[in-house]
């Protein structure tokens, strides 16, 4: 319940965020007026692929060079992100707001040692000697439950497993101690067996350090169990916002459909209902006459 209190003075305040891509002479919107606040809590954003959920994360960091980003308000601890210059963004990215990407196979640089990549994240934002950064990195690797940090430091990304890669990613993004972490499908590329392990590590670190977390996922069940609050997105709009524990009371037919399509123990053994996508087709057509 203490998370609820923080919301009165949130870290991040987004109102009417719109992201669109140029398509010839017109702009095609992919995020159409999304609003939310984030305190020191865990916020889940769920939706199917193409619902615009990942775009939100990148828009917050202003890492969409080809897109047009508009909002009534996009404020991060008193900084107006919309008006922030690239220079200001450089000191925000990583240091104050960071993002964990989906697949460590692609998101780690293949030609640098993983330890150096983590240390680099620390040294961009902190004046530290190579030796100090190395020690910090080793401690961080330990914090993400890597047993032999000295050895792992010197490995290249292709030499580590997916689960370890994602823990390295977490270490890299947490080492400058940001206030907000955006996790974009952090476990969907991982083996089912290591998913919970990685999620628990992330959870532990986020809760201990009081970091605000935005968890972007297509997996409603995961988000529901892991987050405090859930936004359900569809076609670039938020269709439902609700506390995670209150999820079964959702009202929007889309969310209900998503919930019904989840298997659960003790349920009937008949085929799971399939999400009715009819309106989707219609709205797309309406959007582009």
């Amino acid at each position, binding site marked *: 319940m203490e998370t609820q209190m923080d919301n009165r003075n949130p870290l991040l305040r987004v109102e009417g965020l719109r992201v669109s891509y140029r398509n010839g002479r017109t702009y095609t919107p992919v995020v159409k007026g999304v609003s939310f606040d984030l305190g020191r809590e865990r916020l889940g954003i769920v939706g199917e692929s193409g619902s615009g959920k990942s775009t939100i994360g990148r828009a917050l960091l202003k890492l969409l060079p080809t897109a047009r980003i508009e909002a009534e308000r996009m404020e991060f601890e008193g900084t107006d992100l919309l008006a922030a210059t690239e220079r200001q963004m450089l000191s925000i990215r*990583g*240091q104050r707001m960071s993002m964990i990407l989906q697949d460590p196979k692609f998101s780690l640089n293949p030609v*640098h040692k993983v330890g150096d990549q983590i240390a680099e994240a620390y040294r961009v934002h902190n004046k530290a000697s190579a030796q100090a950064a190395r020690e910090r990195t080793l401690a961080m690797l330990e914090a993400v439950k890597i047993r032999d940090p000295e050895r792992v430091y010197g490995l*290249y990304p292709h030499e580590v497993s997916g689960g370890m890669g994602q823990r390295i*990613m977490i270490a890299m993004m947490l080492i400058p101690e940001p206030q907000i972490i955006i996790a974009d499908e952090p476990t969907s590329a991982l083996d089912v067996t290591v998913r919970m392990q990685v999620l628990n590590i992330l959870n532990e670190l986020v809760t201990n350090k009081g970091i605000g977390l935005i968890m972007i996922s297509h997996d409603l069940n995961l988000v529901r169990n892991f987050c405090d609050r859930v936004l359900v997105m569809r076609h670039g709009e938020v269709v439902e916002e609700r506390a995670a524990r209150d999820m079964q009371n959702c009202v929007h037919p889309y969310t209900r459909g998503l919930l019904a399509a989840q298997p659960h123990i003790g349920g009937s053994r008949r085929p799971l209902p399939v999400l009715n996508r009819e309106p989707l087709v219609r709205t797309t057509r309406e959007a582009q006459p």
Partner: protein
Amino acid sequence: MNNARFSAFGRQAGTILVTLIGLLILTFCIGRLMPVDPVRAIVGEEADRATYEMVAERIGANLPLYQQFFKYVSDLLHGDFGVSIRTGQPVINDILHVMPATIELATFAIIVGAGLGIPLGILAAVRRNKPVDHVIRFLTLIGHSMPIFWTGMIGLIVFYAALDLVGGGGRLSDYYIGLVPETTGFLLIDSLLAGDWDVFWDAVNHLLLPASILGYSSMAYITRMTRSFMLDQLNQEYVTTARVKGLSKSRTIWHHAFANIRVQLVTIVALAYGSLLEGAVLIETVFSWPGFGQYITNNMLVGDMNAVMTCVLLVGVIFIGLNLLSDALYKIFDPRTR
């Protein structure tokens, strides 16, 4: 693991061997196809029938083709590349004598080509679809499309005849020829060894134009490849990671994306260096540059069979060697293949 590596090595060695044998067959065929009678070329037009038969016997010209081929290969294996009909010297000596001039030219050219091409390619990729990209693309297309011998002549007309900024044809002005002893064959090095700065600057002056033109054509290729490699990398997820960490664009480009194309670049620069041989054939003719390219053309024009066969073989071997070298570099420098 070790076994797999060994068999991979074995397979590669087999491939090289087959390619080399193919190369030998090819050069042999070219030699046989030539309209020159090798015996007549040695004995001369006036020789009588008996001498002709004797020489034919000695060089094996009347053996069946496959035996001639084996003789050709075994001669090569003994280091005997034959004697040039045109110069009367062993072909290999001739080639060793002309090679430094071409290497000097090609090295200077590749420095120009890679030194300009790589930064331009990166700039074009980073500013993709912006005016700079279009300008660079246009420059490389021109470099790709121009007949290099023509550019050489236009260069001579403008920079030598009209503006008198550079030396004309040849490696040195007439009055400097023979002033420094030929130690290495590389004029720049020889003149420095002799401590003769006048000769050195004259050599640079003569090298500048042909090497720049040759370099421009390889720049076109290097820029193009760099741009496409770089675009590939800039779309990779790890570039986003670097930006998320708070790295500046330039650090992301150089420390992260560029680090990933270094090996590929070494490969294409090596291949471009080999391709300069092709340009050298034409540019050396235009600039009267006494190098390998001119040696090839002169021999082809007069149908000097041994020399042509050896030159073609050498070019093939250089290319196979460069391919192997770039493969090896990949294995050494890319952590994923170590």
